Structures are given as structure tokens and as C-alpha cells.
């Protein structure tokens, strides 16, 4: 077996392999998937000297521990958290050298939800339709990490990272999502559209990689017939029969039959992915292009 591998010591609550996903297959029912906080994953790769499309680990709240079988450079970004190597504190958000056999521990997030762990060479599991991302909706890509699993690593690039540290946005105390109304805002009462952009919602603990679920005022429909299934986009604010909006994230279904009242601006979605349950959430109107 190759030395270029990573043994999973502690998988954590939910740690998955993620890259930039597999867009372009929605017409076959294949979700795009990919890192929920794309900028944080891209930064981790830069710091570890990887190409932007290298696969990283995405943790959920309580981090993970891994033991590389050869010396590697790692970088942890996204949700701020304590990082140790063999129990000794090392830098978060900066390149860290880890010797073969040492244990890298990514601790529980102090703020935010998802930390990204890039390892030089990238996680080199077999790609599926051009991506190594775990898709929790359709089951494509590698299974979530389990204790004792071993992940292959790719060959590190010869050139090293041109960055040592980089600023990262702090996870928000209040999540503000800019929305463009439509395509099905006319399926709701005028009051519902006004409620969406004037009242405070909260991030629900039922949120996952498929969607950011919310609690807050229910949005009333103006018509109650069934919407024939239609294509869904990333950031779609879909309103199921209980009336509370769900914001579609990377593993969202490609088609759906509940009306979409508005669509979140894509650059606001990384902050959504880092917002813990209970975070206050406001939808504000975006200027239409």
C-alpha cells in the first residue's frame, strides 16, 4: 500500500470529502454537491499548496482527527477551531507541517459549523463523474468518514503555497441573505412575499448539506394546486407545505414540486453554511441584474 494516505482516527459527527462538485449533470438527476463554504475550501487548498480542484475534508461542528502515513502540509480553514498535532497547538488558517505518523486533530468549532482540512496532494479517492465530493442526497462519491478508514492522498505539487496566512470572514452573528424574488413568488400571497423580507427567521437544527432549514413565520400560498416538478437551482428558497422556507445548498435535489418564492445570491451561501442552528436570519431584497 502506498505511503500517501491518511488514516482516520476520529471521524467526527459528519466529515465528508469535498471538492468543487459535479455541476453539469442536473438533467440526469445528479446534484452538484461540493464544499458548502467554497471560499474556505479554496483557501485551505492554497495554503496547503494544492490546485483549487483538490479534494479536502469538510467537518461538521466537532472536527476530526487524521494520521498521515507520510509527511504532509495541512491547512485548516472555515469554522475557527483549535488545531493540534500530537496534542501540541498549531496554527489554524495557516500551513502546518505534519510528520508521518503524527496525529492532526481538528477540534470542535468555536464559531461557525464547517471546518475545511486540506492535505498536500489532496484526498485522492476515485472520482465519480469528475468529482470526489460526497453527495449526501444521492449517495454519489465516497461515504462519510468512519473511524479507522484510510483515504489515499495525491502527489503534492512541487511549488509551494505563495500564502502563509490569509484573512477569513468570521461566521456571522446574524445571517443576511440577499434574495431575488421568483420564479414562483406569484404562488404566494402578497403578504407572504412581504413577510419573507421583513421578518426575522432563525436557522433550524434540521439544516444539512441539502438545505438550510428555517423557523419563523409561515408563508401563505395564494394557490393550492400542485406545481408540476421543475428544475431547482442552488440557493432556491423553496417553501414546503408547512410554509417555512428552505434554502437549497449544494446537495439539493435537481427537480422539485414545491414553489420557489425567491433565490439567494450565491455569494451569500458560504455564510449560510457556517451559520449554527438558532442564528437569526434575515432575507433582504437584492437588486435584480
Amino acid at each position, binding site marked *: 500500500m502506498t505511503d500517501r494516505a491518511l488514516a482516520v482516527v476520529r471521524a467526527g459527527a459528519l466529515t465528508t470529502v469535498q471538492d468543487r462538485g459535479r*455541476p*453539469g*449533470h*442536473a*438533467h*440526469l*438527476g*445528479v446534484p452538484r454537491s461540493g464544499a458548502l463554504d467554497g471560499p474556505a475550501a479554496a483557501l485551505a487548498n492554497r495554503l496547503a499548496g494544492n490546485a483549487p480542484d483538490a479534494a479536502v475534508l469538510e467537518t461538521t461542528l466537532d472536527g476530526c482527527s487524521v494520521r498521515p502515513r507520510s509527511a504532509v502540509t495541512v491547512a485548516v480553514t472555515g469554522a475557527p477551531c483549535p488545531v493540534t498535532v500530537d496534542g501540541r497547538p498549531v496554527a489554524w488558517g495557516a500551513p502546518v507541517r505534519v510528520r508521518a505518523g503524527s496525529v492532526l486533530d481538528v477540534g470542535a468549532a468555536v464559531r461557525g459549523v464547517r471546518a475545511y482540512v486540506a492535505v498536500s496532494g489532496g484526498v485522492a479517492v476515485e472520482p*465519480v*463523474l469528475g468529482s470526489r465530493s460526497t453527495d449526501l442526497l*444521492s*449517495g*454519489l462519491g465516497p461515504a462519510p468518514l468512519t473511524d479507522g478508514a484510510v483515504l489515499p492522498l495525491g502527489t503534492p505539487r512541487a511549488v509551494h503555497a505563495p500564502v502563509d496566512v490569509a484573512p477569513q470572514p468570521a461566521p456571522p452573528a446574524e445571517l443576511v441573505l440577499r434574495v*431575488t424574488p*421568483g*420564479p*414562483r413568488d406569484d404562488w404566494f400571497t402578497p403578504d407572504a412575499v412581504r413577510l419573507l423580507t421583513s421578518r426575522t427567521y432563525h436557522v433550524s437544527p434540521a439544516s444539512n448539506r441539502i438545505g438550510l432549514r428555517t423557523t419563523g413565520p409561515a408563508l401563505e400560498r395564494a394557490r393550492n394546486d400542485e406545481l*408540476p*416538478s*421543475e*428544475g*431547482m*437551482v442552488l*440557493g*432556491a428558497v423553496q417553501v414546503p407545505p408547512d410554509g417555512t422556507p428552505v434554502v437549497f445548498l449544494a446537495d439539493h*435535489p*435537481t*427537480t*422539485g414540486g414545491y414553489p*420557489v418564492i425567491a*433565490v*439567494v*445570491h*450565491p455569494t451569500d451561501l458560504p455564510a449560510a453554511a457556517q451559520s449554527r442552528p438558532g442564528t437569526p436570519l434575515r432575507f433582504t431584497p*437584492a437588486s*435584480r*441584474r
Partner: protein
Amino acid sequence: MRVLPVGADALLVEVASDDEAQALHAELLRRRAEGRLPAGEIVPAARTVLLDGLPEPARLAAELTALDLPPVPPRATETVEIPVRYDGPDLADVAAHWGVPAREVARVHAGAEFRVAFCGFAPGFGYLTGLPSRYDVPRRPTPRTAVPAGSVALAGPYTGVYPRSSPGGWQLIGTTDLVLWDHTRVPAALLSPGTRVRFVPVTEPEPEPAA
């Protein structure tokens, strides 16, 4: 035809019927193949086609509103044949909805010509149309927690084949051994929007005599 903006870089084009959606989808694919439609995703559905990843959605919206839909060109690809054992647990219920004897379900279903209207629900799951509307059936009142892979099923106007085991509320009329989705195969999906499909009844072979 209505063109609805979807966020900053997508459009949802809505038409009046399945047939129009099919014609629109074919026309949009043709335009993309000719390099005239820079879209990241073209996702057909029941009455719509979603165009995602558009550099200039407003300009395209104006162009599409004026679009005169040509009729669907005949598809060059051959028909996919799906061998089915019509042995599903909901065969009797479907027969009752149709008002025919149970053995007639296979004959009616295998006699129709289907077309993949769109995909969704799971990778490789196609929504097939082709049965006359008098054969529409409701979903099961209580969905099953696990429908076996290869199940051939009906709901509303659609026939579908479960590519893998999953929860599901469709009426199960049969089973196929054909692998609908295999990500190591090219193409991974046996059925994609526009594919023509026929179901071919097979009878269970006699069990091998014990050696």
C-alpha cells in the same frame, strides 16, 4: 411561453404542455450544441426547462420570448428496451384503478411507447410518459421505506424505474434486472431526457433442478 428569471444567472421557461416542453428542450439542446446558447445546465421537467449558469440571462430571456418552437425533430437514437417481470406487489391495485384484470396490466404497459420526459429524484431516475391519461394512478397512500432497485413503478402520468433501493411512494408493477445507473459506465445513465423506451415482458425462468 413564459420566461421567468431565477436568481441572477438562471431562467425558467414555462410552456403549456409536455409536448411543448419536449420541443423546447430539443431546441435548446440544439442551440447549445451549435454554440449559440452558453448554459451550464439545461434541465427539462414536466412543463418547464431550466437554464442555469447563464452569462446574460436578461438578453436570452428577450430572445426566448420571441422564440417560435419548431416541432420535435425525430430522434436518431434507438429505443432502449427494458425487460420486465410484471410481478410487482401493487399490480392488483393498479389493475383496479385501470378497471382491467391484473394480467392485462402487463399487456397495456408493454404495449405503450415511452419517452423520458425528464430525470430527477435520484441519479438515473427517469420520468417516462407514454401511457394514455386514463391510466394515471395515484401514489401509494403510505410510501414504502425501501423500494428495491430495478422496481418498475407508476405514479400520476409517469412510469419510473428505481435505479437503486430507496424510499418511494409509487405503485410497483414489476422488476427489471437492467442496471439503470452505473457511474463507472459511459454513459452512467441508461435513460436521459428524450430517450425512447419500451418495456418488454419476460417470464420468470423455471427454477434449475437441484444438482
